[in-house]
Each structure stands twice: as C-alpha cells, then as structure tokens.
C-alpha cells in the first residue's frame, strides 16, 4: 500500500514541504513582532459603549506602541492597514487621525480594508504580502469595531431592486442569522448540539479568565469619563481602566442556553445564546521581514506562513472555514493533525460545528480559550484578536490556524508558526 501511495505521490507531485521547512527560519520570512488586543466589551452595555471607534483605536495604539522596545521609531512602519466593517467608508479618515494622534508619523501611509468579519485577518495578509514582495519592511495590521456605535438597522446593506431580482445576487442580503438557520436545516444540526458547543465556549472562556490566560494578550485601556447612563446628569463621570473581557459569564450550561428563544426564525435553532456577541474592541499585529526585525532589535514571537480566502454560497456563508482551511493546509503540505491549535471564529455555533466536522478537527484543538460566542465578535477586530490569542496558545515550533466565515459567502484562513 505504501508503494502505491508513493507512486501516486510521484504522479500527483504534492509539494514535499515538511513541517521543518515551515518552521525553519529564513531571513526573508514575514515574522510577527507583537500581537495584542483591547478587552472586548459588550455592545451597548460594556465600558466602550460610548467610546467612539477612532478614540478606541487611538487609545489602543498608544498602548500598543508603548509595548515595543523604547528605541523603536514608529516612522520605521512602512504601512498601516486597518480592518473595519461598520464605520462609514470603513473609517478611512478617522482612523488615519487616530494613527497620527497615537504617534505614527504622517510619513507612514495608511489604508483601510473591509472584508466583513475577516477584515483584520485580511489586513495581516495585506501587510505580509507587502513585506513579501519587498514594498515595505515593517507594517502594522490593525482591526477596530465599535458595534455600539454602528451596529443596528443602519448596518443593513441597501441592495438595489434591480439586483434583488437576480436570484444569486439577492442572497447577499440574507441576514447572517438566517444563513446559520440554513446550514442547520441543510445539514440537520440540532439545537442541543449547538447549545452544547456554545456552553463549552463559555466554560472554556471562564476557565481561561480564572487562570488569567488573557492578561498577556490584552492591553488595558483607560477611559477618562465613563458613565453608565450618559443621559443621567446626576451620575459622575469616572476614570476607568478596562482590562477584562465583558463577554464571558460564569455557570453557563447547555441547559441554561436551551431556555433562550430562537432569534431569527420561529422554531429555529439559532439563539442569542449560541451566536457570537455584539461587541466593541480593537486588535493589532506588527509584522516585519525577519532580517529587518533582527537589525532593529525587535522581538519575534511568530511567523506568518500563508493566507487563503475562498468563496462559498452566500445563503450558507458560515461554511467558509470548512473550505478555506483544507485549501490552506493542502497548499502548504500540512495535515490537519500537524496543527496544534485552530482559532475558528464562532459566528454561530451551527456553522462552527459544521466547519470543524467537515475539516475533521479534534474539538480539543479548537478555540481552547473560548470563542466569539463567549468572548464577543467585534467584526473588524476579530482576525487580529485571533492572532493575538493563538500566539499565546501555541508553544514554540507549533503550527496554528486562524479562520472565520465571512458575510456574503466567503471563508478565510491563515497559517502561523509560534517561535
């Protein structure tokens, strides 16, 4: 049998890249210098509910740059790319202002990227590609979302009547919750399984929180004047330093989640309890060419290998990771079992379960510190959040994958090595 496989391999010629080649250190590698995030707070309720998105990004950036070696000159950053979904024009103006205010000089160019929930993973890919082809040596990939500020009826896209007549095009307007109901119906995923998956997310996050595992990746953010109710004139604004995620709750079980009503469809299976939370947060990943990082004396925590985005039917957009991850792994000659940790965004329990089963991943390797159901899903910041988390989950030499589904029908996945 082995002889047959050998001849098959000779004919199909898979790339004979080994794990060692993936983890080897070459001077032109794209490496991760640092990856951090803000605490993620609940949309409309948490500490960031009245913080404007540009202010949140500015405060995060100040802390982010302070974490770098004191002799690092932010002018060395060759480009900044910000992932955002809900701001008008993805915040191209106000986030540039945030960069300047935080001390990144005007000479460093800037752009925004909106690929829905994968926006900040796409910025990581954007910066890494620019480093790979030699346009820049050091680059900053950011992600920011204030769902408190922008999420709501106004966030629904306005698809023109002409396009609505096109059967395929109209599917882009399907609400995300319904796409998960479609997956649950098509692949018969039960409410119980989805609640169980969601409860495990809460339990993992609660445990990680108790052990203080998020401390390393979170940069505490100080807000000058927090008021629980901004309209209450009697309440005194107070200075608050936020250092903990607002999403995780203790003692969540599948039974307690089972009591919640379906949110999108009568007798549906998708509820507020087994979907990702509406959240506010920001994330950032500083990338550089290895030789430059060594020259500048920057620490190296990991290595970026590759990124893949694929298209899937819009009406079941949640299957995205199930297609993106295999493509990413095949392209790089990596087996599912070679990967130590998968950070797969839990937009909804149903789509996450389907994707994990499709790829054939061991559940113990998925989101070991909980996912978006427990931690929250600040759309444009999630990709960078996953990178910040996985860099702390992996041990030196281990391979990790981050992935998510993308509204309007896509999936993205990226491959990293911890150093």
């Amino acid at each position, binding site marked *: 049998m082995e*002889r047959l496989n050998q001849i098959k391999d000779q004919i199909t*010629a898979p*790339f*004979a890249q080994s794990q060692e*080649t993936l983890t080897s250190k070459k001077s032109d590698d794209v490496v991760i210098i640092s990856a951090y995030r803000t605490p993620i707070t609940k949309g409309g309720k948490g500490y960031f509910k009245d913080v404007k998105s540009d202010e949140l990004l500015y405060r995060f950036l100040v802390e982010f740059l302070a974490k770098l070696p004191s002799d690092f000159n932010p002018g060395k950053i060759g480009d900044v790319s910000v992932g955002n979904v809900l701001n008008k024009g993805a915040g191209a103006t106000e986030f540039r202002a945030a960069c300047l205010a935080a001390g990144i000089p005007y000479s460093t160019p800037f752009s925004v990227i909106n690929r829905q929930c994968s926006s900040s993973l796409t910025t990581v890919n954007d910066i890494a590609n620019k480093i790979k082809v030699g346009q820049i040596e050091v680059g900053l990939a950011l992600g920011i979302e204030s769902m408190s500020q922008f999420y709501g009826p106004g966030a629904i896209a306005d698809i023109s009547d002409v396009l609505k007549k096109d059967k395929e095009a109209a599917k882009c307007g399907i609400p995300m919750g319904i796409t998960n109901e479609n997956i649950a119906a098509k692949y018969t995923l039960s409410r119980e399984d989805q609640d169980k998956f969601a409860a495990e997310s809460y339990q993992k996050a609660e445990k990680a929180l108790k052990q203080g595992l998020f401390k390393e990746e979170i940069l505490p953010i100080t807000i000058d004047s927090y008021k629980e109710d901004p309209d209450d004139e009697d309440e005194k604004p107070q200075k608050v330093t936020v250092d903990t995620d607002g999403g995780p709750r203790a003692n969540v079980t599948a039974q307690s989640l089972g009591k919640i009503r379906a949110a999108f469809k009568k007798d549906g299976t998708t509820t507020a309890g087994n979907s990702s939370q509406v959240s506010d947060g920001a994330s950032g990943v500083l990338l550089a060419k290895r030789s430059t990082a060594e020259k500048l004396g920057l620490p190296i925590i990991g290595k970026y290998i590759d990124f893949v985005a694929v298209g899937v039917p819009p009406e079941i957009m949640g299957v995205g990771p199930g297609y993106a991850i295999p493509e990413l792994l095949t392209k790089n000659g990596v087996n599912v079992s070679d990967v130590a940790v998968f950070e797969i965004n839990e937009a909804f329990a149903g789509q996450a379960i389907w994707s994990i089963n499709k790829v054939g991943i061991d559940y113990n390797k998925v989101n070991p510190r909980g996912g978006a159901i427990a931690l929250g899903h600040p759309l444009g910041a999630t990709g960078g959040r996953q990178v910040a988390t996985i860099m702390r989950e992996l041990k030196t030499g281990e391979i990790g994958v981050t992935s998510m589904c993308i509204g309007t029908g896509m999936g993205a996945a990226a491959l990293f090595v911890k150093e």
Partner: protein
Amino acid sequence: MLQFRTKGYQGTALHYSPFYDNKLLVSSSANYGLVGNGRLYVLSIQPTGEISQDIAYDTQDGLFDCAWSEIHENQVVCANGDGSIKMFDIGVKSPFPIMQWKEHQREVYCVNWNLVDKSQFLSTSWDGTVKIWSPQRPQSSLLTLNTIKPGFKNNCAYQGTWNPHNKDMLMSVNANGFVSVFDLRMGQPLVQEFLGHAGFEILTCDWNKYRPNVIATGSVDKSIKIWDLRMIQGSIDNSPMNGNTGSPIPMNQLLGHEFAVKKITWSPHSAGELLSCSYDMSARVWQDYTADNNMSRFRKNQCKMFNRHTEFVAGGEYSLWGQPGWCGTVGWDEMCYVFDSRRL
C-alpha cells in the same frame, strides 16, 4: 527497433553490459512492483535483430534496479523490495544468488557500480540511507551515508550515482527534495546539499560523463535540471542570515515531460545529450545547449521523443557499443525496446 516482452513482469531498469556488446540486464517486478515477485532478465541481442532470453532469476520481492559488475563480466546485482541486495553469476547454472547482503530496513531502489574504483558499488533505499558495498566483503557494507531529514514524512533515497571522474565522489537524490553530494575522502563526507526542485521529490540523477562538475536531476515536478556544482554556493550553511531562500538556480532546465521524470542518463558519447524516461509513457533524448562553448548556446534545447511504450517508462540507458545513439528502455507495459535515438 528491437523488442522483447518481459511477460507478466513490468520492467524497472535496463543496463548494457560493460563487457559484451550484445548483453542487456533488465530488472522487473510483478504487479507493478506493488506486491509480489521480481525477475532479473539477462538478454542477448542476436545478429538477426532478435532479443533472446539467456537466463532469468526469480526473486521473492519486486526488483527496482540492477547493475553489472564493472570488474567481473558474469556478475550482476539487483535491488530488492525486501531490502536485500542479491548478486548472481550468469556463468553459473544455478537459480540462486552467489552472494546476498541484507542491511537496508526498507525497499532498495538503486544499485550503481563505481566506474573508477571497480571494486565498489552503492545502493540507495527507502530507509533514507546510501550504502557502499564490495563483493570482497560479503558480511557487511563498507559505509553507510544518511540522507534523512528530520521532520520529513518520506526520506526515500531514490537514486545514487558514482562520479565517473572521481572514484571517491557520489551523489544521491531523495524524496525530501535534497540532492546530496558526498566525497568519501572527507571526514564529513557530505560536501554539498541543496534543494534541487524547490522541495519536490527528486527521482533520478546522473553525472555528466564529459563535464566533471555538471550533473542532471529529474523530478516529480516534470522537469530535468542541469546543474554546475561549482555554481551552487553556501547550500550546506543553514543559518537564517545567509540569504539562502530555497532552491538555487540551475544552468539549464529541460521542460517537456507531462508527468514525473523517473530516470535520466547522460550519453556516453556526447557531453550535451541525455536520455530521460517518464511516467508520461515517453522516453526523450535531449540536447543540452549549455554543453557547447559557442554561440550555439543561444539555441533552444532540442528534444526527440520515443513514444512506443504504452505505460510508464521506468528505466533506460545508452548503449556503450556500436554507433553512438543506440538506447534501450523498459516500462510498465512489459516491453523492452532497443532503438537508435538518432533516427527518432
């Protein structure tokens, strides 16, 4: 064109005798070498143009390669699927080997006799080692060279060849994508190592018979690359800062095969001609323009095709005898062909 059918057995390699101008050695396996017996044919080309079978030796496992002794006209060795190397004497009327070595842990894929120091031959195996042997030493190998790279799933050493210009130099190619050049005079025999085909498995290699520093490699990436070993620098240095970013640049690249290149061999008569055998069911004869030191190097590579085989072409060699250009090939279609490559 002459032909012979290795009925029931699929050919894996063919070699011309260095002593008789009409004798061929063909190794073969039943069931495409996947499972079952092997058979080693000794064939004679008759003056009438027929190819006849002198003798055939049956073995317990498939045979993947064979070689003539360069020092004794009757001795032949074969590479066995069970990890053994067997030596037969075609002058002795016995179906059994006269000598047998069993050290390799897995299938032996190649045996190659040293053309300079004719007392030695080498073998390569799926166990990732290259071993050097001598018939004067029946009890064990003389030396074991390791080509295993930790972390790789497949470290099969597909082929090794002795340098025809230097008795102490040899190279091997491996499924892990590396070409390894050894100099046995050195304390650390591995003197050069590089990724030949950007990480793709390399199945075959040969030293140019006229240009001492020139080699050719054939890979599952369908290409044949021609290298000047002097132009491959710093390839053993694995430090991250040496700027070594994978595959070095070959002198020439021969593209045309539609599937993996299984076997290549340089012409014994011309510095710029080589024969290749491929899974695309063709054998091709190439003119490598880098051999000429004149304006003709700006010509394109020329390629002629032998397409009689109806299955994978697994082995082939140029005849040392007669008019230059005669070749023999064997393949999975159970056919052995002898043809004049100049008339293709």
